């Protein structure tokens, strides 16, 4: 007999379930802990420079992870996001450098280099959705197709060559600032807020949760299950595309081999650490954002204190295990 079981009713009621508490506030607590730890240990942590570095690095993770949250909320997963980033990231320079389209006007080319790559990867996202809904392929397999082929497509399109460029107009999304705030951070905030509102307040948002919560029941209440699922893959694709553009703009270079490499794992990790159930039926956008910050801060903390990137990966894996463990405990 354990001590908890024999405790008096009053005492029991006063003590909240630890696992449930952690699953609700654990990510936030971890975030605060990391900040405090860094304030004490890491030199110059409290500076604009540090904030800037972390915010700009976390922006792409957040953007992709938000899309991933929606997909995971339906009970799916999107492994193709990293490869879709590479496709968008290689398509954009090809457009504004004029190698793809016979258009002279630079302004038009710049606008097209934002729009067309995103539309292109949305089409790939739609393809993912089709595989999942029409052909009933398990999401992990369906999106594995583009995880593999997507990067190949980007490499073939560039012959595997690095595209180097300097184009301040295009690079505004990574280098520019609005009211002193980096443009990519603003994009990140807009994406997160929109997704949060989508989930909380819109019909499609509630339908996403319902489909993930009980797909059969959802269909019987008239929810267009296939359309809802396709929608999340298209959104996930679009957000991966935007992230891809930001990455190449930040690097002044586009390397099909590297853009978005491993991003699917960071995104899934952010979702898991953020407290959304990987089995679907729940989407915690704020949690995902915090999860991405935690992952970013862990990496930063280790790097700033001289621990190599490879070791940071191990810590990241540990975090995911802890997050999933807490979720499981809270559920039971």
């Amino acid at each position, binding site marked *: *007999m354990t001590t908890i079981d024999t405790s008096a009713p009053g005492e029991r009621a006063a003590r909240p379930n630890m696992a449930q508490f952690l699953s609700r506030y654990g990510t936030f607590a971890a975030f605060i802990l990391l900040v405090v730890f860094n304030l004490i240990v890491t030199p110059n942590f409290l500076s604009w420079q540090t904030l800037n570095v972390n915010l700009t690095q976390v922006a792409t993770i957040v953007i992709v992870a938000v899309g991933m949250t929606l997909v995971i909320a339906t009970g799916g997963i999107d492994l193709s996001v990293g490869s879709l980033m590479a496709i968008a990231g290689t398509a954009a320079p090809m457009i504004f450098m004029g190698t793809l389209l016979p258009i002279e006007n630079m302004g038009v080319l710049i606008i097209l280099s934002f729009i067309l790559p995103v539309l292109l990867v949305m089409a790939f996202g739609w393809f993912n959705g089709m595989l999942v809904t029409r052909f009933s392929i398990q999401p992990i397999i369906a999106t594995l197709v583009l995880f593999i082929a997507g990067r190949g497509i980007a490499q073939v399109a560039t012959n595997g060559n690095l595209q180097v460029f300097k184009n301040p107009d295009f690079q505004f999304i990574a280098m520019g600032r609005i009211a002193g705030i980096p443009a990519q951070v603003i994009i990140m905030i807009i994406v997160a807020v929109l997704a949060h509102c989508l989930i909380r307040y819109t019909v499609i948002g509630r339908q996403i949760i*319902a489909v993930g919560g009980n797909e059969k*029941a959802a269909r*019987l*209440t*008239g929810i267009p299950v296939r359309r809802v699922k396709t929608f999340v893959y298209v959104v996930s694709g679009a957000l991966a595309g935007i992230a891809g553009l930001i990455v190449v703009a930040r690097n002044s270079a586009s390397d099909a081999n590297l853009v978005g490499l491993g991003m699917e794992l960071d995104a899934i990790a952010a979702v898991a650490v953020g407290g959304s159930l990987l089995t679907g039926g729940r989407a915690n956008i704020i949690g995902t954002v915090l999860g991405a910050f935690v992952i970013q801060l862990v990496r930063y903390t280790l790097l700033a204190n001289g621990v190599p990137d490879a070791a940071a990966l191990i810590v990241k894996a540990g975090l995911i295990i802890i997050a999933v463990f807490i979720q499981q405990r809270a559920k039971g």
Partner: protein
Amino acid sequence: MLLSMQDISKAFSGVAALRSASLEIAAGEVMALVGQNGAGKSTLIKILTGAYQRDSGTIRFEDEDVAFATPGASQARGIATIYQEINLAPQRSVAENIYLSREPKTGLGLLDRRAMRDGAAAVLKTFNLDIDVDMPVGHFSAATRQMIAIARAVTQKARLVIMDEPTSSLDEREVGILFETIRTLKNNGVAVLFIGHRLDELYEICDRVTIMRDGQTVAHSAMADMPKMELVRNMLGKELAAFQAIARDSGDDAAKPVRLSVDNAGSGVRVRDVSVTVREGEISGLAGLLGSGRTETARIIFGVDKLEKGSIRIDGKARSYGEPADAIADGIGLVSEDRKIDGIIPDMSIRENMTLALLPKLKKAGIVDRARQQEIVTRYIKALGVKCASPDQPIKELSGGNQQKVLLARWLCTDPRILIIDEPTRGIDIGAKAEILKLLRSLADEGLSVLMISSELEELLAAADRVTVLSDGKSVAVLKRDELSETALLSAMAHQVN
């Protein structure tokens, strides 16, 4: 005493589910556990098996204090639970299921398939079940699967087998087989805790009864010393105003226009030739034994499965829906048979669950109109008497009867013209049963057309204006109100079986 639970209390988010409940079972005894929905039966069971932890009280099993942290722990100690939704692996063979996680091994540490097969066949034989143990479990009927689950419990040397509404998905013959099985268990000194609602069954198989009401155990008695009326009175805490109380209007059937007519419908192997009509403002019953194609007929009408033969007409116009969404747009609602699998979204709130079908009409520019949603939810919680802490409580925390009310409200708030309700009172206590049937009646009186699928004769007799009997995927009889009687229904159902 094999099991003695004393003074068990448990509260969920401040609401008391159990107050000082107690339960005692002797070895080799069949104990009935009865009570209305929300009386606390499932909570008591879950505390016993370790799915929930009690707030206070003691549990003694085989003369030792116990507190199981998980269902696995209670199982290891000799308490097996056979749930309504039987937990077997449908794609694995009978033998594999029976020996799951305790597989016999050969000297080399490999699976001893022969021993598994022989052992499984032997244990099934003690229950007079002669089936191919190499077949996947999913291949067999619900009754057989239940028997396999019990056989599994026996091989685990269970001392106490808990059966949660074991007869709810069985037909009469299968119930007979189940009861034989229970008697065999009894003779071997195994105790059975039998949770059920059908009184006749309880009196047939149980030795003693424990009655629960409002989270308390209000009576313990030998079955023989407890007359039926007394049992029901204990359960409800008042004289039972039973089904007979449901008034029916005496209007002329033929005068009412036909809302839904299904003619010679066929789909797959389960529905071969079904014709049924529902007029405006009537409750049309659909009866038949298990597997007769009742649920499948509902699924065709609602656009879940495809209509392959025949026709479906709504208000005289031919319709064949590709998706439930199309049927809903035409004013049809379906309350499905299995709440857990086809009904509730467990983690979502009562509010969300109730308004799921209405959502598309609840939006302004894609955004859910919270004020209207709140207004509708409040109205239906009150109108149907849903017992809950708040509309934001997850639906999984409600009792079966209250979940059913929420699912009913899910459709009522869409203002349907036709409501198909599959086993409206499955897994619901007698008090709530009468309540739900009365509700359906008053809805019909207001003009709603109800197609009520039911395997409970009293329910059909009490509420239906007309009953269509299905057998083996075909409609074999239509009984009008004045022809309706238990004998008439039974003979119609039996007609094609023999």
